[in-house]
């Protein structure tokens, strides 16, 4: 389940946000603090998570303190799905 979420998120980020479909994103690779995902795209990610997993991420949570890599984001999703 976890690996599936990670790969779905990785695919979304590579294709839709970075527009580099071949790019591999590692589960522990930092997304926000590294500037990989810029602030204009954070909302896209939040909306995708909401549509795909039914989990809301509030705008005040869109920062590196809440999640900064795919593992952490997946954990957040899993914890809210329960």
């Amino acid at each position, binding site marked *: 389940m976890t690996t599936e979420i990670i790969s779905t998120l990785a695919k979304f980020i590579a294709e839709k946000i970075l527009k580099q479909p071949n790019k591999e994103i590692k589960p522990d690779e930092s997304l926000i603090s590294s500037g990989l995902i810029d602030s204009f795209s*954070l909302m*896209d990610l939040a909306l995708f998570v909401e549509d795909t997993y039914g989990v809301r991420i509030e705008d*005040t949570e869109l920062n590196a303190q809440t999640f900064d890599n795919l593992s952490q984001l997946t954990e957040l999703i899993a914890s809210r799905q329960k």
Partner: protein
Amino acid sequence: MSTFSNLLHRSYLEVPDKVSIVLQHAGEADQEITYRQLILGANQYALSYAREELKPGEVVLLILQHGQDLTFAFWGAILHGVIPAIMPFLSEKLSPERYRADLASLISITKPSAIITSAEFEEEARSALVPGDSIRKIIVTNTIETQSEPDFESLPGMKAMPDDIVILQHSSGTTGLQKGVALSHKAVLNQLEAYSKAINLDAEKDVIVSWLPLYHDMGLISCFLMPVLLRVPVIEMSPFDWVRAPYKLMQSVSQYKGTLSWLPNFAYNFCANKIRERNLEDVDLSSWRAIINCSEPVHAESHKLFVEKFEKFGLRPNTLQTSYAMAENVFGVTQSLLEAGPTVDEIDRESFMKNRVATPPITGQPSMKILSSGRLLDNTKIRIINENGEDIPDRLIGEIMLQSNCMLTGYYNRPDATESVLRNGWYITGDIGYLADGELYVSGRKKDMIIVGGKNIYPQDLETLTSEVPGVHPGRTVAFGMYDEEAGTEEVVIIAEVDSEEASEQEVIADAIRKHVTKSSAIALRHVKVVGEKWIVKTSSGKIARSANKEKFIGELKS
């Protein structure tokens, strides 16, 4: 003729209890600042500047995030007579080393005497300093003087003259930070007089709502200086919060019955595409009387998306307006007529492309629609000139030059840069366009500037950075902008020549370019194309022609 400080003084006496600014921060209660509070807060900074022996006419750099400290530090500078320049804050996207380097280079040219910043940023600011530079003081916001009644008699800013420089305005990037647009009291106040008339600004009825950063001319002039000086209340949310929750703009307009906002073109697409209706429950946008699109090319399609999305929440379609603006003219050059809205000019595509003339569409031939930027402000004149510098008639496309009573004094400490943009008292904008029936249509740019989300980017900065990446042939890189219809703004393309013809190795270099350029410029790159030798087109004189490479790139994308 008045000055900023005189106007503040008068507001202090005449409307002390009127709310000037409402600051909004996500997760916090809104903070109202009346004129009395604004001037008391500003006075604390003015006294601190005096304590630190800053002299009137010296430049201070404000490196502060959206909020009360930035507001007070700015107006404190006005009361003390020092010249404030607001700097963008270090973002996650930008590497601290590059920020430091840019800051150091700005300091070496602008020669500010002090940096005003917060305790958390103090160390960062210090690390940009070099022995012998102009910075004498770093003033931290938690060390400022306590509140006291201002003594206007002794405040040095009260003695400012209308021709004195009052603010410096920088654009971004290494090149932009080295060119501070210096503006006088008189220039800004002349602009405000002409611009406020063009939008029928009414201090009793209007409420401005903004998320714009203050280090950019659109936010600084239209949503900070104009409202504060002309006593129009302004609701200011943090740009950091807005980009994560664009619906907050609509909620604030609804809550405060906002009447005016300024947005760069991309924000129309951003709001239309990303706001969910669940965040708009009970939102009423019917108070909005003008939303003015400026600071990057305006597109009718973006307006259409915005209206379609927000009409059912009370937005009136005739609210959407345009303006052509630039820091060198303080702000506005043109403004669409609020009653009528901007005209859309449909023209024949081929004549536009080949003959540089905007003529009516021909049946059966492809046409294109150009959104007008409106009519000239009362105080501004423009000329459209051809390559020989001759004036050309309506509907012929040429370079835009302007003259007004609100032009820049010059680029600060850069007589060379100033001289290159002024010709016989006219400012050469570098933009391309045409006039028709008294309306200005801006159709392109002569200079290669890229504008992403309203932010000016110099391609040479990005090319230099790309050349620093191992494996890239130094000097064999090209950067340009390409309009993205979905985003409503330009996206950055970088092309770099490398030795390797191998795909996997090229991908590694492309990745390294993305990382390095983004970290060093805070610009996200959409396309990075790594190519083998001799891909990049050069002119006969050996210079890289950005437009020719852009054409080649687009040609390859399509095929």
